[in-house]
C-alpha cells in the first residue's frame, strides 16, 4: 500500500514535469534517436480575437441551383475560396462551410492579415473563368479573349484515357453555347488556348479538334492535378455568387492587449483563490493549491498538444473550469471535516472521496452535457459550428476532464501522502 502510494505520487510528479516542459513558453523538443530526428515546437494557438486577424463569413447564393448540383457547387466554391485564401500566404488560415436552414455559408479565418479590405474584395469576388487565345508574336505573345467563359461549360469530370490509363479532364458544353464553342475551336485548331481563373492559369492546351458538345483536356498530369482542374472548371461553370455577411477584424495590438489583461486578471484571481483556500482549509488548502497548479500546467500542455485555439470566451471557459476544479476539493474537504469526527484519518479520507464522488460525477456530467452540445463535435448544422461559443465549450469540457483527474487522483494521493503520519 505504502509503496504503491509512493509510485503513484512519483508518476504524478513525472507527468507534471513533462507537462510543465510543454507548457513552458516557447518550449521546443529537439532530439535524435538513432536516425530519427524529432523537432517539435509547442505553441499556444491564439484565436483571431487574441492574435488579431479577420473572420469573414460569405453567404452563397444557391437559390438558382437545384439540390443535386448544390452540394457540388458548394464544394467547388470552397475550393476556389481556399485557393484565393492561400494567395495571401497567411499561416493557419481556415476555410469551412456551414449550412443552416438552407443558407450556405463559407467561413474564412485569416490570422494576422494586414489589409482586410483587399482580402474581402478578392475572396468575395465571383469566380470568373475565361478562355483566352494566345497569339504568338514578336517580341512577346499577347492574350486575346475568345468570348468563351465558365458559363459556357455545363460540367466536368475526371476520366481515364482508355489507351494510356492516364487521367484527363472531360467537360460538357451547355446547349446554347455549342455553336459558339465550335466556331472558336475551329478557328484555333493547332493553336494554344488557355483557361484562366481569376488571372491564374488553370490549363494551357493546344486545340486538337473542333469541339461543340463536349471536349477533353489531356496532358501529362497526375490524378490530383486532374481533380483540381476539374474542380476549378466546375466552379467556373457553376459560378455561385457570394456575399459578405459578416466581418470581424481585430487589430493585433488590441488582441495583444486583451491577452495581457485577461492573463493578469486570471493570475490575480488565481492567487486570491489560493490564498482563500489556505485561509479556509489550512494544510488541506495547500494540497488543493498544489493540485490546482498541476491542473493549470496539465491544461496548458493539453491546449498545446491538441491544439486548442484559445479565444476570449475560451479563457472564460478555462476560468470556470478552475472554479469547478477547486469545487471538487472543497466538496471533499467539507466531507472530511464531518467524517473525521467519527473515524481515524485514513478511513475518513477514503470515505470522503467515496461519498463526494457521487456529487462530483453527477454535477460534472451535467456540465459536460452542456459543453458537448455547445462544442458540437459532430458538426450538427442546427447548432453553432464555429465561433466563440464553441471555443468556450471546448476549454470548459477539457477543464472538467482534467479537473476530475487532478481532483480525484492528484489531490487524493497527495492527501494520502501528507496525512500518513496522522494515522499513527
Amino acid at each position, binding site marked *: 500500500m505504502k509503496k504503491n502510494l509512493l509510485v503513484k505520487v512519483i508518476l504524478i510528479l513525472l507527468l507534471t514535469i513533462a507537462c510543465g516542459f510543454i507548457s513552458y513558453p516557447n518550449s521546443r523538443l529537439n532530439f535524435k534517436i538513432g536516425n530519427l530526428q524529432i523537432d517539435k515546437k509547442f505553441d499556444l494557438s491564439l484565436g483571431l480575437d487574441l492574435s488579431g486577424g479577420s473572420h469573414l*463569413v460569405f*453567404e452563397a447564393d444557391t437559390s438558382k441551383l437545384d439540390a443535386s448540383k448544390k452540394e457540388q457547387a458548394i464544394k467547388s466554391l470552397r475550393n476556389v475560396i481556399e485557393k484565393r485564401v492561400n494567395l495571401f500566404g497567411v499561416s493557419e488560415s481556415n476555410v469551412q462551410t456551414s449550412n443552416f436552414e438552407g443558407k450556405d455559408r463559407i467561413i474564412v479565418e485569416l490570422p494576422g492579415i494586414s489589409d482586410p479590405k483587399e482580402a474581402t474584395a478578392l475572396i468575395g469576388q465571383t469566380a470568373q473563368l475565361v478562355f483566352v487565345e494566345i497569339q504568338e508574336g514578336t517580341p512577346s505573345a499577347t492574350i486575346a479573349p475568345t468570348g468563351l467563359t465558365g458559363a459556357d461549360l455545363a460540367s466536368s469530370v475526371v476520366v481515364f484515357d482508355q489507351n494510356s490509363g492516364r487521367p484527363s479532364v472531360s467537360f460538357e458544353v451547355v446547349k446554347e453555347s455549342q455553336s459558339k464553342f465550335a466556331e472558336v475551336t475551329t478557328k484555333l485548331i493547332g493553336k494554344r488556348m488557355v483557361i484562366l481563373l481569376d488571372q491564374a492559369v488553370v490549363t494551357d492546351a493546344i486545340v486538337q479538334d473542333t469541339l461543340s458538345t463536349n471536349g477533353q483536356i489531356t496532358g501529362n498530369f497526375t490524378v490530383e492535378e486532374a481533380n483540381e482542374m476539374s474542380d476549378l472548371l466546375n466552379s467556373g461553370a457553376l459560378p455561385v455568387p457570394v456575399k459578405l455577411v459578416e466581418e470581424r*477584424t481585430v487589430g493585433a495590438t*488590441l488582441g495583444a492587449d*486583451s491577452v495581457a*489583461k485577461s492573463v493578469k486578471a486570471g493570475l490575480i484571481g488565481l492567487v486570491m483563490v489560493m490564498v*482563500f483556500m489556505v485561509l479556509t482549509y489550512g494544510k488541506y488548502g495547500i494540497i488543493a493549491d498544489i493540485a490546482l497548479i498541476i491542473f493549470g500546467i496539465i491544461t496548458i500542455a493539453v491546449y498545446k498538444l491538441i491544439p486548442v485555439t484559445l479565444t476570449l470566451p475560451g479563457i472564460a471557459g478555462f476560468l470556470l473550469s478552475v472554479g469547478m476544479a477547486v469545487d471538487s476539493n472543497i466538496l471533499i474537504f467539507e466531507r472530511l471535516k464531518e467524517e473525521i469526527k467519527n473515524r481515524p484519518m485514513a478511513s475518513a479520507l477514503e470515505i470522503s472521496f467515496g461519498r463526494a464522488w457521487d456529487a462530483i460525477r*453527477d*454535477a460534472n456530467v451535467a456540465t459536460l452535457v452542456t459543453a458537448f452540445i455547445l462544442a458540437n463535435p459532430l458538426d450538427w448544422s442546427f447548432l453553432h459550428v464555429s465561433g466563440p*461559443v464553441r471555443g468556450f465549450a471546448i476549454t470548459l469540457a477539457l477543464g472538467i476532464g482534467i479537473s476530475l483527474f487532478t481532483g480525484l487522483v492528484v489531490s487524493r494521493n497527495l492527501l494520502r501522502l501528507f496525512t500518513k503520519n496522522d494515522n499513527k
Partner: protein
Amino acid sequence: MIISNQNMILWMRFRYIYFAISAVFLTVGIFSLFKWGLNLGIDFTGGVVTEYQLSSGEIKNEKYGVKSDEEINKIRENIKIQGAKELRFEVVGPSIGPELIKKTLYALGISATLILFWVAIQFKSIKFGISATLATLHDSLILIGGFSLLGHFMNVEIDFLFVTAVLTILSFSVHDTIVVYDRIREKQRKYDPVIGSDITKIANSALTETMVRSLNNSFTIIFMLLSLVLIGGDSVRWFAVALLIGTISGTYSSPFVAVPILVTWEELEKKLKK
C-alpha cells in the same frame, strides 16, 4: 427557534420568503424585459462597429446600422484618411442575428432537456429533474432581466459573449444544485432515526451540511470573476459581469429555489394522497 435540537437550521421554515425574494427579482427583470426589452448589439441587429486609434493616441468608437458595401468602404476610407490605425472593424449582416438566436435556443433546449433527464435518472425521480431545471430557468431569467436593466440604464449591449454567459450559467446552476441534491439523496437512502423520512427535515439537514461548501465554492468563482471585471479589460468586462450575476443567482437558487420547489412538491403530493 431557528436551530432545531438535531443541530440543523430549519431552512425550509422560511421557504415562502425565498419564493418572495425570487419573485421580486423575477418580476423586476420581466417588467424591464417587457418595458425596455434588450439592448441588442450588432451581433443580433446587424451593423458596423469600428474602433480606431488616432495618431494622437486617442481611441474612437463608432457604431452604425446595416450598411451597403459602398458605405462600409467609405467608413474604412474615412478611418484611413484621418491617419488612424484600425483596431477593430466588425460588419454583421442582418441575417446573422436570427440564426444566432435560433441556434442558441436549440442548444439551450437540447441541453436543458438532457440535463433534466440526467438528473431525473440519477436521482430516480422526475421531481428532482424538473425542480433543478426550474431553478436553472430562474437563473437564466434573472440574468437576462438584469441585462435588460443594465442595457436601459447603462447602455450595456447584448452580444455573442452574453449568449455564452447564459449557457455557462445554465451549467453552473445545475452543477451547484446537483451537489445539494446529492446530499438529499444520500439522506433518503440511509434512514436516520433522528431525521426520519420527512422531506422537510431531510432538506433542512442537507442544506445545513452543504451551505458552507456552496458558499466557499462560489467565493472562489466570484474571486476569479471580480478580478476579470476589474482588470480584465473592456472586451470581457460585461461578459464577466454576466457570469458574476449568474453565479450569485446560481448559488442562491440551489438551496433557496431548487430545494424549496422539491419540498413543496413532495408535500403537496402527500396532501393530495391523503
